[in-house]
């Protein structure tokens, strides 16, 4: 019950007028960021982060997390009306959302998507409310070896559970780690991999890298597609909203299934993208109308949206409780906590109670505010998409450059951003995943510190990762997750070989 009173106190903090104002502002900015190509959750938050350095941490994180909610909502608008996923996690929403819009049911599709997002996010917040304090109090017992094991678990599950080519995931992770190592080494005080350059002494700021990879890279990709958008019109009135809401209870099973998938994928860093596809796939498989999926089925909109938002929200759980973000945007928010002088992780729940519970309360309110705002403003944001690209693109690029510069007032950083923009473009085209790179870059220093401290304590013996039940359990789970993908692949390949051998025999 202690936590419950903390939550109530949190609501008091989040319900102050200026925090509600930041919430509304954040949601609106977030929707803009989600609707515009080239801006997204991670780099939208990254660009605005420097502007919040002077703010009170609680208000700052309410503003930034509201941008995150808004971006999650905004992705659905472009998927349904324009068949352009504003975010990678809304790709699955286009499968049924756009056909619905073509058939003239855009308003129903949008209402369904927003409501599903809200339900998904709410389930994620409930999970955080009840589970995060438990995880945090459990994690208070962790030493460096245990923390390194948790980091290992995070990275291994990325490699094992990822949908991309595994060698490329590992490559991407390693690049992140190595970029994190550039500059001043925090333990020995030596310079690493600077090759005599004074600019590299500060190392690579992950915010600059994020703005480059996601912002500039995305604009270059969009430019390739020919720079025109063609969209459907939509107007939402209260009658349609209520009618759609009345039909939702019929799909409760789909919603529950997607919530569970999303929560699981969000906590383990599978991410919102994988969750949305899994939610869609499961709904298609189990729905009575599965055969109609892809032609404009409302369930096909509900399932991926619920899963994506449940995942996107749950990704904040490990960030708050362990200091390990479950998604790229959570990684950026975590970077923000460090900038405001807050050490994310289990101690946060003990030392910064007001902050943590204020944030959790703001998640409830932010999503509610998001739902209302997004329902009211769809026509406005659909109009944003009608502004010509030749006008929007330079503004976005200028804003990206300003964002990269303001982080440490360095023009060199703008060049770094440009370089990573080109890298992001090439990597996206070659299917190198970008999220592992960002995560490793954010966590690299702390993973390395944990590793070195653990080894120092044991005088260099790797036995320290096998010392007690807790750490060896974590390491075993990490290895299982790492090998899970290759093993299932091998089994599937064997199965195929057997089948083709049988088929060959039958043919003889």
């Amino acid at each position: 019950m202690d936590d419950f009173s903390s939550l109530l106190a949190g609501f008091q903090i989040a319900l102050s007028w200026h925090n509600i104002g930041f919430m509304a502002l954040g949601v609106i900015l977030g929707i803009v960021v989600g609707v515009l190509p080239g801006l997204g959750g991670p780099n939208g938050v990254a660009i605005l982060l420097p502007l919040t350095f002077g703010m009170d941490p609680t208000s700052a994180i309410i503003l930034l997390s509201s941008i995150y909610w808004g971006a999650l909502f905004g992705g659905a608008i472009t998927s349904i009306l324009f068949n352009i996923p504003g975010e990678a996690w809304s790709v699955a929403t286009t499968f049924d959302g756009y056909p619905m819009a073509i058939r003239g049911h855009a308003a129903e599709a949008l209402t369904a998507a927003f409501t599903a997002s809200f339900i998904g996010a709410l389930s994620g917040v409930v999970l955080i409310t009840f589970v995060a304090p438990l995880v945090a109090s459990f994690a208070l017992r962790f030493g460096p070896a245990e923390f390194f094991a948790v980091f290992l678990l995070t990275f291994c599950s990325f490699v094992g559970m990822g949908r991309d080519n595994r060698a490329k995931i590992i490559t991407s992770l390693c690049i992140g780690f190595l970029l994190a190592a550039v500059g001043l080494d925090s333990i020995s005080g030596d310079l690493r991999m600077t090759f005599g350059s004074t600019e590299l002494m500060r190392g690579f700021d992950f915010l600059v890298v994020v703005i480059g990879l996601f912002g500039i890279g995305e604009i270059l990709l969009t430019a390739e597609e020919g720079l025109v958008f063609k969209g459907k019109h939509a107007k939402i009135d209260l009658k349609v909203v209520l009618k759609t809401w009345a039909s939702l209870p019929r799909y409760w099973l789909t919603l529950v299934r997607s919530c569970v998938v999303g929560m699981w994928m969000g906590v383990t860093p599978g991410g919102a993208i994988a969750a949305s596809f899994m939610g869609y796939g499961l709904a298609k498989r189990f729905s009575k109308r599965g055969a109609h999926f892809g032609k404009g089925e409302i369930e096909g909109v509900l399932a991926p949206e619920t899963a994506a938002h449940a995942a996107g929200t749950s990704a904040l759980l490990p960030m708050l409780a362990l200091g390990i973000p479950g998604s790229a945007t959570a990684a950026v928010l975590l970077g923000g906590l460090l900038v405001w002088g807050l050490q994310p992780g289990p101690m946060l729940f003990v030392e910064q109670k007001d902050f943590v519970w204020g944030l959790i309360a703001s998640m409830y309110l932010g999503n509610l505010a998001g739902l209302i705002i997004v329902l009211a403003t769809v026509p406005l944001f659909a109009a944003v998409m009608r502004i010509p690209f030749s006008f929007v693109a330079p503004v976005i690029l200028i804003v990206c450059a300003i964002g990269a510069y303001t982080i440490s007032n360095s023009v060199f950083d703008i060049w770094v951003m440009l370089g990573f923009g080109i890298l992001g473009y090439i990597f996206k085209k070659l299917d190198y995943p970008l999220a592992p790179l960002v995560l490793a870059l954010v966590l690299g220093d702390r993973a390395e510190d944990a590793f070195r401290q653990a080894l120092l304590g044991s005088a260099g013996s790797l036995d320290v990762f096998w010392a007690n039940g807790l750490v060896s359990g974590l390491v075993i789970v990490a290895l299982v997750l790492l090998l899970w993908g290759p093993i299932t692949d091998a089994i599937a390949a064997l199965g195929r070989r057997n089948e083709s051998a049988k088929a060959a025999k039958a043919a003889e």
Partner: protein
Amino acid sequence: MSQPTNTTDEPRGLPRRSVEILVALTLIALAGVVLYDSHGRGAGWDGGPQNGFFPARVGWIFLAAAVFVLWQSFRTESGIFVTYGQLGQVARVLGPLVLFVALIGPLGLYVAAAIFIVAFMGVVGGSRWWSILLTAVIVPIACFWIFELQFRVPLPKGPLEAALGY
């Protein structure tokens, strides 16, 4: 490096395999640099892990993964990485952008932004000259108002701002 595409009706472009190989080779070279640097500074044990200890180990994994990606690239279907038409579109965005970043140093961000908008909208096309000019004036002024006056975040300034007394 580029291989001729044998199908005639497909649009011509950079072959994916060449780009894949080029990227993998670059990554292998980077891994080599990392390993050279880390082992040069000491990647062993000296009363504790030396500062190259962790990067060197990551470097070896990086090298192995990059070599594996290189090997894979020879075994997969090639296809087209980007058609020359698309590459032209990307260049029309990238060209003005590089110009913009290069001008921020000498001219300050606001003037560079105005030049960038004119260059970008001119190169991409589709806009009337007065709307280009209007955008080029309004956007930098709006940025100045938001960042310099409202948030008090100083951005790089050049001779023009100095002449105006900022």
